[in-house]
């Protein structure tokens, strides 16, 4: 399972390098950049609501098995 390890950084511009799926590479790269900026702005908002005692919370989050 070592290959599922998420050590690689997300590709910048994500999907712009191939350009084989119809849209031009440049257009896709632009779309990817916009998405990245959008996500960057979101990170601050995520932190505003993210559980403060994250580690503790996750440790305590134990459910009984359901169906």
């Amino acid at each position, binding site marked *: 399972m070592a290959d599922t390890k998420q050590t690689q950084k997300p590709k910048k511009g994500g999907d712009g390098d191939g350009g084989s799926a119809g849209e031009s590479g440049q257009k896709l790269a632009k779309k990817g950049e916009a*998405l990245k900026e959008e996500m960057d702005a979101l990170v601050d908002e995520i932190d505003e609501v993210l559980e403060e005692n994250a580690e503790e919370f996750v440790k305590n989050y134990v459910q009984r098995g*359901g169906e």
Partner: protein
Amino acid sequence: MQKRIFGLESEYGIIFTPEGRKTLPVEKAIRFLFEKLITTEHFLNVFLENGARFYQDTGCHPEYATPECASPRQLIVYDKAGERILEDLQDYAEEKIREERIAGKLSIFKNNTDFVGNSYGCHENYLVDRDVDFYYLAEQLIPFLVTRQIYTGAGKVFQTQDGVHYCVSQRAQHIYQKISGTTTNDRSIINTRDEPHADREKYRRLHVIVGDSNMSEYTNFLKVGTCAVVLQMIEDNYINKDFTLRNPVKAIKDISYDVTCKRRLRLDNGREYSPIEIQREYCEMAQKYIEQYPVSDQLKDVVGKWQYVLDCLDDDPNRLSREVDWVIKRRMIESWLEKRGVGWTDPRVFMLDLQYHDIRLSRGLYSLLERKGAVERVLTDDEVLKAKTEPPPDTRAKMRGEFIKLARQNSIQYDLDWSNIRLGNLLNVRVICNNPFETDTEKVAELVRTIQRTNLRKTSLSKLVIQS
């Protein structure tokens, strides 16, 4: 079947986090959730005005079962409405908890696992023709169900000795059998529970328990919609290729651990296909099928979306960071890590995963993404709001929902299950509705009137059974 009944059952994770010495056991927290729903039915098991059922299930999970729905899209409207209903109940429960002077926070998650190996399910129900050979149907469906997680998975962070990883599906690692009769031990892909809640001569129930609970409307729509198309093709004997997997239970885990979605699986006939390739085969058959057979516009839309997600997956799964839960969530976590300059071993990664599924609009990270327009939607807020109180207009749920409203307005004693309405002082009047497609609410209204007249005269009504 052209006309089909769909149902979705979601078990929710629940936890109370105390902010002080006093705590609250989860059993009690759940009781508070139900307190707002005072009916004459059994406590912890009630039907709602929209026709849905809300109850406490195995392992102390609140569970919401949608009303009978007539299409995949309608189904996901009612599934989403369930999240909103539960959030209302959570508000009420929190108020009650405050009244008890217990400081803390109640959290409810629409996901399928904790981080120590427990799972709770999301079960899909499809009404199928009794005439179709069930085991044939199941065998045909399994390769589809095993591989569909590449666009229906909800994604999960997990830890092993060699680090923190991300996998496609929440549920995959909890599946141990192909087909079985139990839902808590030896969970399977397809469960054999045969409770059609309808005429058993005509129908049986297909109970799929391998799926993940979805936050994304787009993903949820694809999950149910593609399965509906494949089912219809199987019923029409349209599937002419054999994708029987050599080891479907192992395959489901292998696929979940492969975020490229391209690693090949061995079929029974010795050939090897990637999950994308198997899905492409089904999707291509579906494209031809919808040209030749009568298929609803909605299912045609599903096939279009299906093709789109497969094209994206083939190119780069990151392209689905607005459409598919596991990609949306991973993208969110990656962006967070990148901006904070930390790696996957940061303990907050697990919280980001969990909180994506928080049903509280103000806390849930999926709902934050949705508010910011960062995900594709399929539904409108208005239709979800309406579905909280209005039953689907074209199934038996309409009769149940209308009945509940009338009975409450008139303080009539009642008890319900999916195909029966019992009412009257001694619950001695029973309406049997074995046809899940029936919508004749006048029958229900008339019955309520009869009961009212009888109650007013204070005479006892002898046992009355009405076959609807």
